[in-house]
């Protein structure tokens, strides 16, 4: 008797081990929850619905604007699930590995503008050519070009762009004895970012206590660079960052800020930066359209009616994204239809109304209406007018595969050393150079 019960224990243990092992192996083969599976069996649920997954980062606003619900109502056989990764620097490496593994991707994958060239140059064969599916003339030429390969394959449809303006605190400007009218201010710094910085020197002469003119030198750098045609790469895709006129100009303006006392010396998208908004510790910030939602959220009620928007010194673009359909998607047809619908001018206008993400399709501009509370928050500024004027004149920019890490090296190593560690601009440039060499593996 005793032996037999012991044996049955053993058998159970063996069975458990076997189950565990096969479970592990099966886990390697395919995780049914992780990726899209076949429509005939797994993908459709009991009602025969197809579930489409949309992989995004940050806040795209589709869900908030009710677009998914609307689409599901229009297409009762479609179910949409959004997989959000908050940070782009986590989202993109993950997406890259999944694309190359050919599994685990969502049916629609968002691509940030900082990564789009890398996607075009290295992952084009992993994406469906969406150019054949849409009327390409809907988009701004440069936006379409960013997601199109040399042989004309469009791997992503443009969602929003980041036309630039300057958001400023009217109340602080008034206390500092500066001009507060948005058109006059725009005239004052028109054409040159260094004029915008000059005004900062005026501001600091009579600055309300505890406030600075601008949040950081890096934001001025990014804004100024956003208006340059030549950035880190030339037209043919060679790295020219150290000789680029655009970089030089933006760097010089940023150095003016970093070596003066007009910067609050914050790091963008950092907690203290958010607090800076809440406490009103800086008077201006370079403001792409998508930043407006952020300001409203972080400045909160205390900033209502105090913020205003003026046209930026130069037309510039900062940020934006695309939607692509991976070839690994099991529901390509449905996914393409959804991507088309989400990026169509009407839907882009709805997202603008929700969170001021600016459309990349000019035909939407005529009927753009920001949300009423956004307009009120920014002192009834003609937001649509200011951003669409900027959007129409943004120059075509040459992007490259390593744009993102090169940019980080300049702002978070070079500029930060000058701004926060008191290094000279030459030392900052030298440090950025070393860093970029490391980035490029030179």
């Amino acid at each position, binding site marked *: 008797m005793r*032996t037999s019960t012991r*044996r049955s224990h*053993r058998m159970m*243990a*063996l069975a458990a*081990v076997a189950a*565990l*092992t096969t479970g*592990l192996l099966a886990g*390697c083969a395919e995780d049914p929850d992780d990726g899209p599976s076949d429509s005939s069996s797994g993908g459709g649920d009991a009602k025969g619905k197809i579930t489409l997954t949309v992989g995004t980062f940050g806040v795209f606003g589709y869900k908030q604007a009710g677009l998914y619900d609307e689409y599901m109502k229009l297409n009762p056989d479609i179910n949409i699930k959004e997989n959000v990764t908050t940070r782009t*620097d986590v989202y993109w*490496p993950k997406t*890259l*590995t999944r694309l*190359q593994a050919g599994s685990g991707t969502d049916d629609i994958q968002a691509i940030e503008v900082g990564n789009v060239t*890398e996607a075009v*140059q*290295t*992952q084009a064969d992993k994406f469906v050519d969406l150019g054949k599916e849409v009327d390409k003339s809907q988009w701004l030429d440069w936006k379409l070009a960013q997601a199109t390969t040399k042989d004309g394959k469009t791997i992503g449809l443009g969602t929003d762009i980041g036309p630039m303006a300057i958001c400023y605190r009217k109340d602080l400007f008034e206390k500092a004895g500066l001009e507060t009218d948005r058109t006059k201010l725009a005239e004052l710094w028109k054409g040159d970012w260094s004029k915008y910085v000059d005004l900062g020197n005026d501001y600091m002469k009579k600055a309300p206590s505890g406030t600075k003119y601008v949040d950081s030198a890096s934001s001025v750098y990014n804004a100024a660079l956003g208006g340059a045609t030549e950035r880190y790469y030339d037209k043919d895709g060679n790295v020219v960052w150290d000789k680029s006129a655009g970089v030089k100009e933006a760097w010089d303006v940023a150095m003016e800020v970093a070596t003066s006392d007009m910067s*609050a*010396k*914050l*790091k*963008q*998208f*950092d*907690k*203290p930066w958010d*607090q*800076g908004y809440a*406490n009103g*510790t800086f008077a201006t910030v370079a403001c792409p359209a998508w930043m407006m939602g952020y300001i409203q959220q972080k400045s909160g009620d205390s900033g209502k009616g105090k913020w205003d928007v003026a046209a930026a010194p130069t037309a510039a673009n900062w940020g934006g994204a695309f939607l692509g359909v991976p070839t690994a998607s099991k529901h390509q047809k449905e996914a393409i239809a959804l991507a088309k619908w989400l990026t169509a001018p009407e839907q882009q206008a709805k997202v603008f109304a929700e969170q001021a993400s600016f459309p990349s399709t000019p035909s939407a501009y005529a009927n753009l209406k920001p949300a009423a509370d956004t307009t009120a928050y920014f002192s009834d500024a003609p937001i649509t007018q200011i951003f669409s004027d900027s959007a129409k004149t943004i120059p075509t920019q040459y992007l490259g*595969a*390593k744009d993102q*890490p090169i940019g*980080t090296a300049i702002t*978070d*190593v070079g500029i*930060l*050393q000058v701004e*926060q*560690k008191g290094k000279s601009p030459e030392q900052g440039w030298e*440090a950025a150079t*070393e860093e970029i060499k*490391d*980035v490029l*593996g030179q």
Partner: protein
Amino acid sequence: MSSSKQALAHPASSADAAPGNQPGAARGAQGRGTPPAGTDSWRSRLYRWDMKASPYVFIAPFFVIFGAFSLVPLLYTAWYSLHNVQLSALDNQTWAGLDNYKNLLSSDFFWNALTNTFTIGVISTVPQLLAALWLAHLLNYRLRGSVVWRVVMLTPYATSVAAATLVFVLLYSWDGGMINWLLDFVGIDPVNWRESDWGSQFAVSTIVIWRWTGYNALIYLAAMQAIPSDLYESAALDGAGRWQQFRHVTVPMLRPTILFTVVVSTIGATQLFGEPLLFGGVSGSKGGSEHQYQTLGLYMYDQGWMIGNLGKASAIAWSMFLILLIVAAINMLVSRRLRKSQ
């Protein structure tokens, strides 16, 4: 069952006579001594197989998991480290030999990261273990509500790195952080904790110390409670005070435990990653604008996932592994020495 056993008892009576001494051997002799006969021998063979194999089966799950999630990746990383592999072109691997390693040895960033890992490791591990020893000593006295104290000690360990670090980031905030506010009372100018060279390393170390001191203290406490009390009594009879008791009884008795915590803390310090990454906030993998607190772990992450050079990142990973092996060897030598000297 019983009848067959009796039948078997005769030829193997000598073995059966002393079953208590060597049960395994007795059974073995019994089995060998009997001619194979039907189900019975099948059963005994199965039983023998069972005796031999089941320990391995029981530990197999660990090795299966270890193989799948540690050994294979480890070897694959070694393979990667000898190639030029970009994150955006994983299938396009070109042989690079030892280039990635040579590249590291000549890179200022690597040596900087190695130095930072070492200095942060020292300024976080040494105070942490000393404090833990001291706390354990205090907790070893009879205290009211000793369980409460012990639970409190363990709470930082149970807190997630992310949550703890976020709080510390706010405490160390340059503008309006509590620490600078306190320093202001004593008349010290605000320190830019994140960007200053020693300040950032100090700040990162405090997060590590805060999280791990309680954990180590509990380990010490457990070991202290195993020290027989007559040792203290006889020391007291010889006229040893509390400090002398601690110095000459507690610490020597804790030696193996201290060694264990040193090993574990050293491994933890070499792999330090989460605290500095989150402390840095946006682009935290740079470890500050001058890489003043970029550890090896951060440098690896920056190279592999931010810059996309997986080959080089793998070389960093293997360098870290080799460094850990060296550290382990040193630890082993030291512990052998200690054991001999005892």
